[in-house]
Structures are given as structure tokens and as C-alpha cells.
């Protein structure tokens, strides 16, 4: 029996700094898919409108923005139809915000499962990011519908361009940012719950630090501009809008910054998560 059993397992106290075990994550890929399915399907069980609810939320938010920021406050939309301008921001921000909020609660929300059975813990946040991606896709279709309506039936000045090819990259950066930050926060909140109170609030405020209800071009104050550009989500939203409409600010520099911010956050998040996952049950 000296042959190495593929399932030989050594349980020891200390983890190496980076102990990702991607092979094991791959072995549990079915679980990831089933979690995604569960999250996606269980949301609209026992509702009349079912998956329609994925549409209703961004539609109502857009209408609200059109009334409050466009109608009452008369804020600029860079000459774009308000519906397109707001919806573009809301749909991409929603993905980030939802994925971040849910992944940041991974340990606390799943303590009952994690306390009873082992599987690579990182499956849960990964599944969240994927299932929120599905929600994003549904809402993106809504955006496309609105976009084509304006593009084909009105004389709005819309100039979709080759930046559209960057869309997959934008999605990857958004997912990476949300996952990295979420992993970091959930690992920090197992012991001290203080961050939990902060996160919902921070996401809400973060929306105002991102060019969603205003275009970046409206910000003249250079210091304020710096602050907003320091937010890695800003260039994502601007690029997204620019790709479809030709209006907005697109620069490789700020997109590159977002990409690097994603890598850093992802690395920091993974390391912290890794450190905590083995013993979090003792402190959660």
C-alpha cells in the first residue's frame, strides 16, 4: 500500500501562505454549478412575475434617476438619452455592487453549511460571482433592447464603436474587483463584524463616487477628478458607455489602472481568505 493514493490527505494546523489547491476546486466544479443554479432559481420561486423581477429593479431605478437627477436636478447626461445614460451605469454598477455585497457575507451567511461539511470554501464566493453574472446578462439584454430602440427609432446621437470588443474584459475586471474585495471583507468580518455595518453603506456611497448619475466629463475640479478616477469602477462604467455611444471618456491608462487594482485586490483577497478559511468556524 505504499503507492500514493490520489486522495491521500494530511490535515495539519498551519497553512502555507498560498495554498490554493485549484485541482480540488476543479473537482468540485459540479457543486459550483449547482450553487449557481440554486441561487438563480430560488430567487424567483413562488413569485408571479418570476424572472421578470430581474428587469423590474433596474427599470424602476432608471425611471427614478430620470425623474430626480435628470428632471429635477437637471444634471448633464453628456447629450445622451437619459434612459441609455442611466441604464448603462446602473446595469454595470449593479453587477459589481451585488456581487461584492453577497461575497462579503460568505462566511457569516454560510456558517451553518461550513460548520457541517467540507468543500473548498472558495466555491461559494465563486458561485456568487457567477450567479450574479447571470443576473447581469439578463439586465444587459434589457439594456440592449433599450439601446436598439434609441439607435433604430430615434435620431439620438449614438456611435457604437470598436471599444465594444473590450466588453468581456470589462466584465472580467468587474467580477475580479468584486470577488477580491468581497473575499477580503468576508475574511476580515469573521472575527470582527464591524465591517458588515460599513459595507452596505460603503456600496451606497460608492455609487456616488462612480460616474453613474453624472458623466466624468462634467468634473472640472482636478482634485475631485483624481478621487473619482481612483475608484477602479469609474473607468469601467465610462468605457462601457463609450463603447455603445461614443460619448464618455475612454483611456487605456485608467483601464489599465483598474486592471492592476483588480489583480492587487484579488491577490490580497485570496491570501486573506486562505488564511482564515481553515479556522473561521472557531471565531465566526
Amino acid at each position, binding site marked *: *500500500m*505504499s503507492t500514493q*493514493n490520489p*486522495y*491521500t*490527505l*494530511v*490535515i*495539519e*494546523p498551519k*497553512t502555507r501562505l498560498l495554498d490554493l489547491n485549484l485541482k480540488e476546486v476543479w*473537482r*468540485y466544479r*459540479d*457543486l459550483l*454549478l*449547482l*450553487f449557481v*443554479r*440554486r441561487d438563480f*432559481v*430560488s430567487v424567483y*420561486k*413562488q413569485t408571479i412575475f418570476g424572472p421578470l423581477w430581474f428587469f423590474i429593479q433596474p427599470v424602476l431605478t432608471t425611471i427614478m434617476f430620470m425623474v430626480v437627477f435628470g428632471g429635477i436636478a437637471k444634471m448633464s447626461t453628456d447629450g445622451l438619452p437619459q434612459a441609455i445614460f442611466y441604464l448603462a451605469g446602473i446595469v454595470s454598477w449593479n453587477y459589481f455592487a451585488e456581487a461584492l455585497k453577497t461575497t462579503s457575507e460568505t462566511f457569516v451567511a454560510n456558517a*451553518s*453549511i*461550513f*460548520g*457541517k*461539511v*467540507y*468543500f473548498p470554501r472558495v466555491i461559494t464566493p465563486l458561485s456568487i460571482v457567477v450567479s450574479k453574472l447571470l443576473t447581469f446578462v439578463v439586465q444587459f439584454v434589457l439594456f440592449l433592447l433599450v439601446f436598439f430602440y434609441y439607435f433604430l427609432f430615434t435620431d439620438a446621437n449614438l456611435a457604437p464603436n470598436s471599444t465594444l470588443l473590450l466588453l468581456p474584459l470589462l466584465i472580467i475586471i468587474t467580477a475580479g474587483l468584486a470577488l477580491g474585495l468581497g473575499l477580503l471583507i468576508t475574511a476580515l468580518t469573521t*472575527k*470582527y463584524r464591524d465591517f458588515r455595518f460599513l459595507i452596505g453603506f460603503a456600496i451606497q456611497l460608492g455609487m456616488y463616487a462612480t460616474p453613474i448619475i453624472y458623466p466624468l466629463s462634467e468634473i472640472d475640479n482636478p482634485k475631485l477628478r483624481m478621487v473619482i478616477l481612483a475608484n477602479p469602477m469609474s473607468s469601467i462604467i465610462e468605457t462601457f458607455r463609450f463603447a455603445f455611444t461614443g460619448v464618455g471618456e475612454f483611456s487605456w491608462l485608467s483601464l489599465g489602472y483598474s486592471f492592476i487594482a483588480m489583480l492587487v485586490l484579488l491577490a490580497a483577497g485570496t491570501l486573506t481568505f486562505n488564511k482564515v478559511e*481553515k*479556522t473561521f*468556524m*472557531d*471565531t465566526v
Partner: protein
Amino acid sequence: MNIEPIIKIEDLAKQYRLGSIGTGTFSHDVNRWWQKVRGKEDPYLKVGEINDRTQTGGSDYVWALKDINFEVQPGEILGIIGKNGAGKSTLLKLLSRVTAPTTGKITCHGRIASLLEVGTGFHPELTGRENIYLNGAILGMTKKEIASKFDEIVDFAGCQKYIETPVKRYSSGMYVRLAFAVAAHLEPDILVVDEVLAVGDAEFQEKAIGKMQDVSSQGGRTVLFVSHNMASIKALCKKVIVLKNGSVYYEGSTEEGIRVYLESSKNNLIEQLMLRKDRIGNGKMKFTNINVATFDKGAIQTGLDIVFTIGFDLKANATNMWFRLIVIGDDEVVRFICNNYHSTAPFRKVNKDSNIVSLTIPKLPLLQGKYYCHLQAVVDNEIADEIEYAGEFDVNEGDFYGSGKVPTIRKGVLIEHTWTI
């Protein structure tokens, strides 16, 4: 041939920090970090080490498990028994990788699946079918494996009709059956089971135990089984480990292990009654103490002969005296009443020097559990002393009928009986 153990545990220990986490622990953490930055040792690890084996009061750290060493051979069913707090659950948690040990090492050669709870991850809104897949995957099966076992699982659970219904509509029994069915059809090399058998009806429990036996005997798989139920330990395991206060107290044959466990957990406390104020009666006689035990002073078990020894203090010689002892359960329901006025006759001549009365109950008919007794003495037709909850005692599982079987409906008391046809 020298077979390599499938599980090898070496010097395993787990330390827990007591108390709640708040600003106090945060200052510990900051201090710890600061010492580390300055290149010094962790100041609190030392505290932990000092309190290591001694467990003096005031320590913030406790060893839930320490110095655990044992091996499990392939195909073995190992029972793990011990009182609450002995470290059984901690051991299972470490084995199933829910949490990591503080020191030591476990080496396993094979896939481990743990069943610390049935129905982990069941989502109430999803149907039975969806939950079988989800739960199976959580327990470590691939979709393909589950699909190939699907019909067997549904058949075992006996819920074909409800398979497309959300599990929140299931009766609790059906829910548990389905959950166990999924777990029972896992095919790990090592199965770790925590008292999940304590659920479900008798028929299902029998099925579950049978399934576990099959898993081991035909499947050649290793099972680690934790239970309080001595009957199922006896039925399943050839070898047991008794844990006590976080260490291995006994390792060996099941029968001897159960004996050791019962011996160590007996609660034949002598209750002092002299100082009790909550008593009524004219005081012509006073109870002083009560003690419950078997004849050989062993642990009290269902079906054994037991003796209550009651001490008392009598003011004057009595010519008409009787005693009453009422045994009630944890649920405050009376199980039986022993009164010598009814069963035989009052004591006609009791010398004032007498100070002990004993009550023998042959073949204790009580089921496993905690019981209390009320005491009363009547002297010359007047209540002389009466104390409620004068004593408490634990009854351990035993073989009342001598048939090797234990009733699964845990209600009432056991009586001798005969069926004829």
C-alpha cells in the same frame, strides 16, 4: 501482510479561546501584531501554554482535545463514545476538515465524507430532485455519480411521489429520510457519522443501521461513528474509543469500552437532605440523605436491580410508619410510585435508633434518561416529612428484555409481557 492504517492521528490537539470576541480581543490582536513587528514572541501563546494542561480557572484558553493518538484500519467501524463535552464533536470536526487542529496531524488515505448533520445545504424552495443533486455535490459527489445513484436514493427514501415538490412541503420524517438517503449513497472510503441516526422512526433507523453495516462489510469502507446510543454502537462497532475530557480514555473492544464508559459516567450521587428547607411535615421524622445505586455500586442501567438507600432521623419510636417514593421523569410525568402502605403494610415498630430504609426495585423499567424522586414519610397517619426533588439520577441504556433489542419509541416504562397466538 502489514496493512497500512487508513487514518492515522498523531498528537492531535485543539485549543479554543473562551469568552466572547470584542474590543478586548482586538487589543490582544493589536498587541500580538505589535510584538511580531518588533520581532518578539506572541505574548498570548505563552499564556496558552502555561494553561495548557492545568486548565486552571481564569484561563482564557481551553484544550478541547489533547494528545489524541490512534489508528483506524481499512474496513473497520470505529465507535466513538464519551459524555457531552468529552471532545467527540471536535474530533469529528477536525476529521471532516470543518476546522483545523491547533497542533498534530491526521493522515488519511482515501476520500472522507462526513455526516455531521443530515440535509446540510438543503434549500427549502428547491424540489426533492434538485436537492438530491445539490446535497450530493456538497457532500463531494460529482453530478455523474449522483445521476447514476439517483433512482436508488429515491427508492431508499421512499418519496417517489414527492420528488418534484419543494422540500419545504415535506414532513419532517420525509425530509430526514431523503437527506439520509443521499448521504448513505455516497461512496467515500471513509464515512464519518455523528448521531444522525437519532432521527426518524424505528423502521427507518433499522434501515439506516443496516445500510451502514453494508457500507462497511460489502463496500469495505471505513466508518467512524459517534453516538450516545449504546445499543446502536453495540450493533455496529467491533472497536470503540472512549473520550474523556479531551483525551482518549479507553481504546479497545466494544463491550469493555461501553462498560468503561458507563462506569465513568455514573451519577450515583448521595444527596444530602439535612439542610433542605423546602419541606413540609410535622418534623417527627426527617430525611437526611438519599442514594441510588445498583447492588454492585455500578452504573444504573435499564433492566438492572437498583436500590434506593434513604437515611432518616426519627425523634421517637414509631408504631405506624410508611414511606412513599415517586419517580418522575425529566418531563415531570410520574413514572411509578412505591409506597409500602399499599404494597405490603406500614412498619409497625420502628425504633428511634433506626436511621436507614432501603427500597429495592428489581429490573428497573425506566428508559435511558434523567429522573427525579419525591420522598414522603408518614408517621402515625400524619405527614412527618416530605421533600420534592429529593434526588436525581441518570439511567443508562440497558437490555431490559434480555433480547438484545431496545425499543425505539422512547416513552413510558418497560414491563414484562408475553404475547401468545
